């Protein structure tokens, strides 16, 4: 359940909210050439209700399911139109009730290239950008995907194509829209059969449905302060529902809508050091937890090469 956003968000900043600031895959911000932006984010997510298919319920054998993660990320601007980024999280999961064992480990490496292919710096409504992103996710840790909802991820390789449209006024107000489509590779289980979607499959290979996502955010971004609100929607293009009173299965149809906000502030006189905090709440879903997520972190921006203006 927690891997719902791991699946489609890419940079570490996105973890808790789905859309965030500061040079993530799905925002409209591009770093200036030669800039490195890196940091560490702690994210905390919990739910005590979830959707078993479309049925909202609690589960006395889980209580509250908590997922914590620590993300290390780095973005580098090859040019001001091409940024490359990578991130790796370490994830912990635990259930407050019942007897199920906690899980933890290194999850998936994400690598992305972000290219701003159309820019209008001085239109009547502001600075307009259209951005394309290609990103890939590669499971790093050899964790099991077969212990949902406590598995730390889905253990699927992923490829995401994303388009983002961004408008920012001279006064600092902005609107950002982003949509992505994710293809996932087969997941290999440790067992020779599994049952999903009404069928018993005599293989260890699980076909994973594609995922589409859509995000809209709006806010203010100037003078080292950024504040925004956003809505994120994910739709999985296939997969079965969690069966009645069953554990979730890795290829379940995981859908959700979340609303949240983010604040980021570049601390004056500390030369590029910034703090961020974000929060999001799931208000609609299927086969996911009714989760509240927060994240907090420190980021650092440094111009490695001072020759500017690409």
């Amino acid at each position, binding site marked *: 359940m927690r891997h719902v956003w791991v699946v489609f968000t890419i940079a570490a900043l996105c973890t808790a909210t789905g859309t965030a600031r500061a040079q993530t895959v799905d925002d409209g911000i591009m770093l200036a050439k030669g800039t490195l932006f890196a940091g560490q984010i702690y994210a905390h997510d919990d739910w005590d209700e979830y959707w078993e298919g479309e049925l909202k319920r609690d589960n*006395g*054998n889980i209580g509250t399911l908590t997922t914590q993660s620590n993300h290390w990320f780095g973005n580098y601007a090859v040019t001001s139109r091409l940024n490359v980024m990578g991130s790796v999280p370490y994830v912990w999961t635990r259930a407050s*009730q*019942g*007897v*199920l*064992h*906690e899980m933890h480990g290194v999850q998936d490496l994400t690598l992305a290239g972000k290219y701003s292919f159309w820019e209008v710096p001085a239109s009547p409504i502001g600075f307009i950008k259209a951005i394309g992103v290609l990103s890939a996710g590669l499971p790093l840790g*050899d964790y*099991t995907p*077969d*212990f949902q909802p406590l598995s730390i991820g889905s253990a699927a390789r992923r490829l995401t194509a994303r388009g983002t449209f961004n408008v920012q006024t001279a006064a600092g107000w902005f609107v950002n829209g982003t949509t992505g489509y994710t293809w996932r590779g087969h997941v*290999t*289980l*440790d*067992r*020779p*059969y*599994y*049952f999903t979607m*009404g*069928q*018993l499959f*005599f*293989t*260890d*290979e699980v076909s994973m449905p594609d995922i589409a996502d859509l995000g809209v955010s709006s806010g203010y971004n100037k003078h080292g302060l950024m504040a925004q609100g956003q809505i994120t929607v994910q739709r999985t293009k296939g997969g079965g529902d969690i*069966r*009645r*009173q*069953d*554990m979730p*299965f890795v290829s379940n149809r995981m859908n959700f809508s979340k609303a949240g906000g983010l604040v980021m502030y570049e601390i004056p006189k500390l030369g590029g050091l910034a703090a961020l905090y974000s929060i999001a709440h799931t208000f609609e879903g299927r086969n996911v937890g009714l989760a509240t997520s927060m994240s907090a972190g420190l980021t650092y921006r440094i111009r490695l090469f001072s020759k500017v203006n690409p």
Partner: protein
Amino acid sequence: MSAPRIASTLTLVALLASPAFAANDETAGTWQMVVLTGPTQIQVAPPLSTGSPDYQAELTAIKSAQSRLTKEQRRNVDYWSKGGVVRWTEILLELVARADLPPAPAADGSYPAPDANNPFADPRFPFANPPYAARAYSYVAAAQADALKAAWYYKYLYNRPGPSVVDSGVKALVATSGLPSYPSEDAVVSGVTAELLKLLFPADVELITRKAGEQRLAALHAGKAAASDIAAGLALGQAVATVFSARAGADGMRTAAGSPAIWAAMAASATARGEVPWRSMETPARPPMLAMFGSVRTWLMTTTDVANERPVAPPPTSSAQMQRELAEVKAAVDGLTREQLAIVYKWADGASTPTPPGHWNIIALPYIEAAKWSEVRVARALALLNMTMHDSAVVCWDTKFAYFNPRPSQLDPEIRTVIGLPNFPSYMSGHSTFSAAAAQVLAYLFPSGAAYFEEQMEEAAISRLYGGIHYRSDIEIGKNVGRRVGGYAVSFARIDGADR
């Protein structure tokens, strides 16, 4: 290793391993039966002569159908050409997996029981947990075997050749073996299986009925059986199912759930012996799974045998040995290697699976298919395998509820499990018992696979300690008892007439 690779390796092994028998097993009509008193308990009337106008009309109907065969009908012929008993085993594995879901708790914390008379409700009937599944597999397999032995008796009594032999205008779309076609073995299997499955999995009646019809149609379209072969086979299969259904109605399953008074008495008995009694670790607490399944009728053991095979008591819950075993479980589950974790999940066989007895059917199928045996010998093999696993379930459940021993997580709440914790007493391990019995029988049937079955059995057994749900005593004793239970099936196999 991916599943297809596993399967192809197994197939290779099985090809080398399978003992050769006379292809058609002409004497199978004399093999010892399990429930039927003999092949003539159910009468099959002599067929019309192949020269009669009615039979000739049946041949004409086959030729006509073959000349207009659709792609879908051809696919259906190919599907069933793998063997009816094997196909039904695959279907049954899926029915079990679909029905292997524990009831969800009601708002008041109670657990509604599945109702055979209202199978589509929530919870659906049945909850195909491991004992239920073991019993279901065994009824289907044993009934198929007895029905086919009877069919073989009449086949060689009447010796009516197959349609494609009588009339060269009838195409043989699947390989023919010269097996007499009256009564049709495919129709026998369809009839006996469908009738039993409708009782065992009533919510799947539509699928079951459709598959049975398709199997009979495939026999006709393939040129294997004429309408009268099929009619006689269907009637024989259904009549055998009636005999087995009567047995199932009186085998103790109806009362296997027990009652609150019985569960309380079991706990009180453990307390009186100075032991910590088992309790459900679920929230809300769930009644134990089939507390009286140990009283369900067995196939190859007498009630005295079941009583004799109940092992000695587990280490007392307060003993130093139990403390050591508890510590071993905690150390194991908190320090699992990735390989150990893979073993746990390979053998988890929990909710939404064919259960541990189903897993052993999945292991057996490639060997059985590769052996290229007659349908009756295939049925006998699966009957031996599944009857011994049912008997294992009975002996294991008898032991579990006699001692009512707590799970590791109950004695030490710090022990967390990496699979769902089964909701019934710990001693002894069901997976170990099933697996040891199954490995014993499969090693008898496929001697050169013995080492592989033994290795799988050991892995299945230890997976329960790695998973955090069983002590070492549960596993070791479970294996010992399982081997002994398997021995009853092997003893039967040695004298049933098939291997002489």
